């Protein structure tokens, strides 16, 4: 089974264009933007590998950094949120219908 994992993608990128491309790659994979340079969402192993390859091609490894952190469900439940928080249900794919 190709199980879905919660994944954080956090990056530090100087060039505006590069940063934009990384953000778009995350969005297209189905991650949600939870902060300016932080994405979160559920991906399967293939999608994580694809994202890693994609980001690797985009960044300049000499100056930029991208972290891809998997996180287990159990730990996600223990996450503490303050202030402008993200939608827990949305990022963990528990929302079954999105009304627009």
């Amino acid at each position, binding site marked *: 089974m190709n199980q879905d994992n919660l994944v954080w993608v956090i990056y530090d990128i100087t060039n505006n264009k590069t940063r934009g491309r990384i953000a778009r790659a995350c969005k297209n994979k189905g*991650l949600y933007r939870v902060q300016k340079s932080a994405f979160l969402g559920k991906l399967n192993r293939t999608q994580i590998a694809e994202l890693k390859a994609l980001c690797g091609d985009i960044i300049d490894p000499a100056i930029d950094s991208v972290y891809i952190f998997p996180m287990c469900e159990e730990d996600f439940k223990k996450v503490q949120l303050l202030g402008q928080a993200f939608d827990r249900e949305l990022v963990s794919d528990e929302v*079954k*219908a999105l009304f627009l």
Partner: protein
Amino acid sequence: MNLVINTYGAYLQRQGDCFRVRVDDKVYDVACAKVSSILISTAAYLTTDAIKLAIDHNIDIIFIDEMGEPYARIWHSRFGSTTEIRRRQLAIAETEEGFNLALSWVKRKFDNQIELLKKLRTTRTRKSAQITGYIEKLENCRKQLDTMIGTIDEKRNTIMGVEGSGGRIYFQALSFLMPEDHKFEGRSRNPAKDEFNALLNYAYGILYSRVERACVIAGLDPYVGILHTDNYNKKSLVFDIIENYRAWAEEVVINLFAARKVKKEHFDQLENGYTLNKEGKALLIETFLRFLDESVRYCGRNIKRADIIQFDCHKIANSLLSREDESG
């Protein structure tokens, strides 16, 4: 998730691998990897790019009218499986095999209704005795099916008759269970005469589109039914198969009323009936999809209710094919 476009004048387009929905001044991007179907229940625009993105990812786009009836869908132009299944489907419609298959669906419908009433009885102790009465009546109806043999042409009217009288008893029972101010007089469609029927019609509509999709994927021809006659360009097989799952819609609607979630504000009143408005649709769709997403024990495995429909359709298709092997 299911993307539900529910706001008048929404605009759906493609943005990379995302669907972009513009609603008034707001823009939402949803990755296509997260979308399983797009339900459009209001006047909206969509671009061909967005359609292509959906088709490439096996996401169907379903259009639903204000009564909840799906009136069109965009789906790839391939058929789900081998044509042999359709050939067999036509062949057995007239035979005893076909008859037994159709009969098993009607029996299952009765079983589902009885099971639902039993379930509802456990939490309604004051009404328990009357519910038991209804259950017994339904069981008597079902017994008439046990001894039935023949072909569908000979017995169609008889089965439909039993089904009809069972249905009346069943809906009387459901009406009896409703809170005092929401009792209803039987089924009504186009438009619904009361809130219960408005909700139920809409839920059936969602179910209907699911069943149609499952048929196509399994390679079954939705137009070739057994019990429902197929000469009016209607999707008879969908009507046949949906009987197995209608009780889910009924359970969800009953529970919405029991939990006092249904409000007057969820409906628009017409001259001669009721329709669900935007908030009402949102409530129903959200609750129903959650229900379909629950895992239940079925045929010795844990499986989501939504997947049971596909599972059953594949099973029907496989049984059609394997019969072919035996005779050839």
